[in-house]
């Protein structure tokens, strides 16, 4: 079987869907953060695949993927700090129990 662009895109779409499901359905805040990372990496796969199949002479997609990784790392750093702050107040990181404000 020849691996083509559509296989990469399929993989990317599946990973993105798993990540989105995890972000919506999981209760542990760290697992939600991991799911979001999965979504971002799915985007990276799509970016790199598009870049090498559609415009092989340019590196735009690869460069975009690098930027996404760097920004995602910054986002996770802030996210983990906020989760620590949450743990100090609630003594849990179960997202369903962090519910002082509703409606």
């Amino acid at each position, binding site marked *: 079987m020849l691996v083509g662009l559509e296989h990469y895109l399929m993989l990317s779409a599946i990973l*993105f869907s798993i990540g989105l499901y995890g972000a919506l359905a999981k209760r542990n805040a760290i697992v939600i953060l991991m799911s979001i990372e999965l979504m971002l990496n799915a985007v990276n796969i*799509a970016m790199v695949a598009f870049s090498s199949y559609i415009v092989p002479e340019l590196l735009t997609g690869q460069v975009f993927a690098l930027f996404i990784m760097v920004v995602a790392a910054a986002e996770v750093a802030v996210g983990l700090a906020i989760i620590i702050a949450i743990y100090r107040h609630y003594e849990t990181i179960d997202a369903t129990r962090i519910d002082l404000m509703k409606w």
Partner: protein
Amino acid sequence: MNLELFIPELSLGIFALAVILLDLFIKRKGYLVVVSIIGLVVSAAFTIAMWGGSSQLIFNNMLAVDGFALFFKLLFLGIAALVILSSVDYVSRFSRFQGEYYALVLLSTLGMMLMAAATELISLYVALELASISLYILVGFLKDSRSTEASLKYLLLGAVASAVLLYGMALIFGVSGKTQLLEIAQTVQTLSLEGVLSSPALILGIVLLVAGFGFKMAAVPFHMWVPDVYEGAPTPITAYLSVASKAAGFAIILRVFFSSFGLPEWLSLNWGLVIAVLSAIGMTWGNVAAIPQVNIKRMLGYSSIAQAGYLMVGLAVVGFSPAGNILGQSTVLFFLACYALTNMGAFIAIIAISDKIRSDQISDYAGMGKRSPIVSLGLTLCLISLIGMPPAAGFMAKFYIFSAAVQHDLLWLVVIAVINSAISAYYYLRVVKVMWLNKPASEEKVPSSGTLRVALAISCSGVLLLGIIPGYIMRLAELAARMFT
């Protein structure tokens, strides 16, 4: 390199770092406010000096220096100055990290300025994240349980939204092979309706972009974070979120959709229709959900969802009008300027009152007309402006945006918007009634500090000026909309 065209951003960045450094050395933290304000003024001066020059693209077509970007830069700088002035009292009580607070406000302003200027998907994404990540931290700055909860909710939902936005960008990149907005437009222009329907990656990409930007604009159905985050965040940051962050969202969606998807006509008509439907749902939901609220910050959160709906009427006009017609863009810019002054004014008044009575409940505002007449008068003016009644700015803003919509066959949307304005009068006027007619809980006066009074005076006089003589800013908005690369 055209570094001289980048000076407003560069100088603001330098001042933000200077604030962090100075914080280590000086004991009297009041100077940090002065340095931050000087940074904003310097950056604004450079921006004004560039006004009227020709439109240019810098850094390999990554950023645009055009009237549109300059208009938004001035708007963000002005908002940030008001936010810093209204934070002085609030922040002076923090035992630590005062410098970081001001530096983060400046950095997120920098991110928003870059957002308004970005003409390329990579620079757009990095600018958006610079603005967002600074805001995630600022929302949790109080470090009590509500503030951290708001911060976590904002971070998780914001990160999901930016992942969705990125997936949309990847699909657009896949369709066109380009990330520069004008180059994307060249590919998109040649597509036919049948071709796109048979391989719908472009449609999915546009829908995902609307979702990602909709989160920033707080448009229904991407608004779930708004009430919680507005309630939990420090009040000056709530004001900043409701005004600057929303304006930045509108700046990028205007630029991306007008530059890249403005042609062919069937495409722009279709996304215009999507925006129009979201707008109708948004204003209805925002206004209906605001009615039962008892917390004033939460109420203004729902109100800002409704205002995003009114603003999207202008965005729909952009989709419905032929390319080269700037009516839609200029009315959105004018509405944003009016909304910024009005909502800032309302939040500054809330900071002045709530900070002293230690409560955000509307019922605790009873008799404020007697306890703090000047601040209550300012809040009343701003609420009247939010309803859209003359002589306040909100009236002119709504008048322009609705008349633009009528000219482009969106009468049904205007009818819904006008009905919504009538609904909104109920909950805005309820606050006015509580303040002026209900019996106060105590006779004690509520004092307010000098900086808050200055900030309130600036916003209220702006609201009145824009309401009575809107011509000047309207011409400025038209000029900005015309100078669009």
